C-alpha cells in the first residue's frame, strides 16, 4: 500500500496546517472525507469548479455563513444547519433548490472525528433534501483564529413561472401565516451552551422547507411574501417586511404557537420567544381569501403541521408591527437593538 492510500485517522487525528497547505495531507482530507461522504456525479468530476446545465427560468442564488456555538446541539449541528439555512433562503424566493456549494474554514487542532460527524450530517441533510453539494473549498487557520469550524454554503435554485415573491408585495388586508411553533432553535442552542447547563429536551427545528414551499406554491401561486424567521425571530422578520412594504402588521398573540417547554425556558431566562431564532419555520403573506386553503396544505406537510393564521397586514405609515396581547391590551413588537439580553432581576 503506498502512502497515498492510507486513510486519514478520523478517530484520533486533528486538523493541522498541512490540511490547508495544498499538499498531500489536503488531498487526503478531501478524498477521504469530503468526496467520500458528499459523493454525487457533479462533485465526483473532481474539478475545481462544478459544471452543470441549468433549466430555463429565473435563477436565484443565496449565500450564508454559518458560525454557531456549540457546534452540536439537540436536533442538529452546524453541518445540517448550513445545508438547511441556505436551502431555505433559496426556497423563500419561491424557488426549487438545485445545487449547493460548501466552504469550510477549519481551526488548527479541530478534531477530525468532529469534522467527519459534521460532514456526514451535511451529506444526510443534502441527501434528504435531494439537493447535492457540487463543489467546495477548505482552508485552515491557526489555532485561536477560528472557533472550530465555520461553514459557508451557497445555494442555486430556479423559480417557477408565474411566481413572484417579494417583501414589497405585502398589502393591507393580507393574511399572515406561520408554519409552526417559534423559538425552538434558539432555546435549543441556549440550553446546550455550557454556562447554562439547562436540562431540557427542546430540539432545534432545523429543517429544509423547500418541499413545503413547493406544496404551497402549487396550491396558491400568487403568494406575496415568504420569509424564514431566523436571527431576530418572528419579530425581526415581520419588521423587515413591514419596512420594505411600508405597511403595518397586527398580530394576535394568542394565535402564535409556542411550545410549553420553550415558553417556560424563555420565561426563566427573561427572553421573549418572538425574538428567538428559528431554523425550520416560515412566514407567509397571502390574500385573505387564500389563507384557509394555504393553511390546509401547510398542515398536511410534516413541517407545517402546526401552521396558524397569526395576524393581518394593516395600513400604517409608521410601518409598526403591533400585537393584541393575550392579556387584552396592545403593544408594539419592535426591532431588537442587538442581541436579546436577559434582564437582571
Amino acid at each position, binding site marked *: 500500500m503506498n502512502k497515498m492510500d492510507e486513510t486519514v485517522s478520523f478517530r484520533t487525528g486533528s486538523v493541522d496546517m498541512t490540511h490547508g497547505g495544498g499538499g498531500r495531507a489536503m488531498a487526503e482530507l478531501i478524498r477521504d472525507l469530503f468526496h467520500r461522504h458528499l459523493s454525487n456525479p457533479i462533485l465526483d468530476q473532481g474539478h475545481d469548479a462544478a459544471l452543470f446545465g441549468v433549466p430555463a427560468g429565473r435563477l436565484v442564488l443565496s449565500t450564508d455563513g454559518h458560525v454557531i456555538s456549540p457546534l452540536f446541539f439537540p436536533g442538529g449541528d452546524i453541518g445540517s444547519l448550513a445545508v438547511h439555512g441556505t436551502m431555505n433562503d433559496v426556497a423563500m424566493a419561491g424557488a426549487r433548490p438545485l445545487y449547493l456549494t460548501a466552504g469550510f474554514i477549519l481551526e488548527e487542532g479541530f478534531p477530525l472525528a468532529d469534522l467527519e460527524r459534521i460532514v456526514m450530517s451535511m451529506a444526510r441533510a443534502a441527501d434528504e433534501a435531494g439537493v447535492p453539494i457540487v463543489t467546495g473549498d477548505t482552508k485552515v487557520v491557526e489555532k485561536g483564529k477560528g472557533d472550530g469550524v465555520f461553514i459557508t454554503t451557497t445555494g442555486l435554485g430556479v423559480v417557477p413561472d408565474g411566481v413572484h415573491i417579494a417583501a414589497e408585495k405585502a398589502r393591507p388586508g393580507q393574511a399572515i401565516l406561520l408554519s409552526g411553533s417559534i423559538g425552538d432553535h434558539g432555546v435549543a442552542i441556549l440550553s446546550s451552551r455550557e454556562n447554562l447547563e439547562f436540562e431540557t429536551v427542546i430540539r432545534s427545528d432545523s429543517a429544509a422547507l423547500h418541499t413545503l414551499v413547493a406544496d404551497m406554491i402549487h396550491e396558491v401561486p400568487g403568494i406575496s411574501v415568504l420569509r424564514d424567521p431566523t436571527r431576530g425571530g418572528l419579530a425581526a422578520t415581520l419588521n423587515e417586511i413591514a419596512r420594505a412594504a411600508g405597511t403595518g402588521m397586527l398580530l394576535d398573540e394568542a394565535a402564535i404557537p409556542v411550545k410549553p417547554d420553550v415558553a417556560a425556558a424563555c420565561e426563566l431566562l427573561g427572553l421573549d420567544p418572538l425574538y428567538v431564532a428559528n431554523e425550520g419555520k416560515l412566514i407567509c403573506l397571502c390574500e385573505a381569501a387564500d389563507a384557509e386553503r394555504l393553511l390546509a396544505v401547510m398542515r398536511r406537510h410534516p413541517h407545517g403541521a402546526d401552521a396558524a393564521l397569526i395576524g393581518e397586514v394593516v395600513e400604517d405609515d409608521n410601518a409598526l408591527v403591533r400585537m393584541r396581547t393575550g*392579556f*387584552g391590551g396592545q*403593544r408594539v413588537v419592535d426591532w431588537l437593538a442587538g442581541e436579546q*439580553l436577559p434582564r437582571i432581576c
Partner: protein
Amino acid sequence: MKYVDEFRDRDLAATLAKAIRKEADPARHYYLMEFCGGHTHAIFRYGVQDLMPDNVTFVHGPGCPVCVLPVRRLDDAVELAERHNVILCTYGDMMRVPGTKQRSLIRAKADGADVRMIYSTADALKIARDNPDREVVFFAIGFETTTPPTAVAIRQAEAEGLSNFSVFCNHVLTPAAIGHVLGSPDPRDLEKVRIDGFLGPSHVSAVIGSKPYEAGAELYRKPVVIAGFEPLDVMQSVLMLIRQINEGRYEVENQYTRVVTREGNRKAQDLVASVLELRREFEWRGLGSVPDSGLKIRERYAAFDAEKKFEVSAKVSREVKSCECPAILRGAKKPTDCKLFGTVCTPESPMGSCMVSSEGACAAYWSYGRFRTPAKAEEAVA
C-alpha cells in the same frame, strides 16, 4: 405554562379592569408610581395601560438597577476590565450601557477586554475556578433581590479559597430610594412629580418583607401595595391602591401573598448582613447621593472586595448633556419629554441608561409604547 398563564388570564383581566373603572373616582386623577423596572416592563409587554381608565397614570420609578447606576461606577467597571486585565463578569443588561464618551462594556470587549456575560454568580465562581491564574471580578448590581446570591458567592469563594475572585459591589436598596423620592425631592421637580401611591416590587419584598415600607408610608402618607410581576398582579394592586386612596388610607398592603410575608426571608437577610453592610451614602443616577441606600462588602471579606483589591477611578465621568434620564428616573419627566428620545437616542445607539435596559422607561416606551405618541416622536425627528 402552568402556574404562569393563570396570572395572565384575559377574562380575569377584563373583570379586574371593570372593577378598577368602577372604583376610580371620575372626578380625580390617580398617579401611581411603579417603582420597579420589572413592573414597567410588564405594564408595556402585556398592554396593561390599555385596560386602565384614562384617569389612572403610571409614573415610572427609579427601580431599574442598570438605569440608576451612575456613570462613574460603570466607568470604573470598564477600567477594571481594560486596565487591570481582569475577567469581568456581568449580567447581560449591563453590557450596552454607555459610560463616559459612550464607552460601554460591549465596546471594551470588542477592543479586547475580557468581559463575560453570566446568568448567575455561580457562573462567575466557575470562571474563577477554571482560570486560577487570572483575576475574576463579578460586577454586582441590583436591588435587594440580587444581594443574597452575591453574599453566597463571596462566602463560597472564601470557603473554597478562591483568592482570584472578587466582587465590585453596587447593590442598592429600595426603601431608601422611595423615601428619597418622597422626602427629598429635587427642587427642580417641585409641582412636577405627583405620586398618590406606590406599587412596591414584590421580588425585593420576597427578601426584605413588606415591613421596611411601613415607616415611609406613615411618614409621607402614601399607600404602598407590594405587587407581583404578572399582569393580573399589577391590575389587582392598582385596584388595591385606588381603594386605599379613595378611603384616605396609607397602609402597606401585600398583594403578592403567595410569596411575600411581612418579615421577609430572615435567612436571606442574615446571610446578606453577614457579608454586606450599609454604605453611608451611594450615588444614584437621577437621585444624586442618597444616604444609607447602598451596600458594601464588610471588612471581614475585604479580600473579595474589588474596590480594595484594585485601584480604579480618578477619571472624570460624564453623562451626555441634555439626556433626561435623571428627571425620568425621578418621575419628573416622561421619556417623550426628552429631546434626544427617538432622535439621537434609540436602543441601537443609547445615550442614557434608560434606553438600554428593557426595564428602563425609555426603552419600554420605545419598544412597546411609542405608537401611542407617534406624532411626538416624528416631531422630534423633524
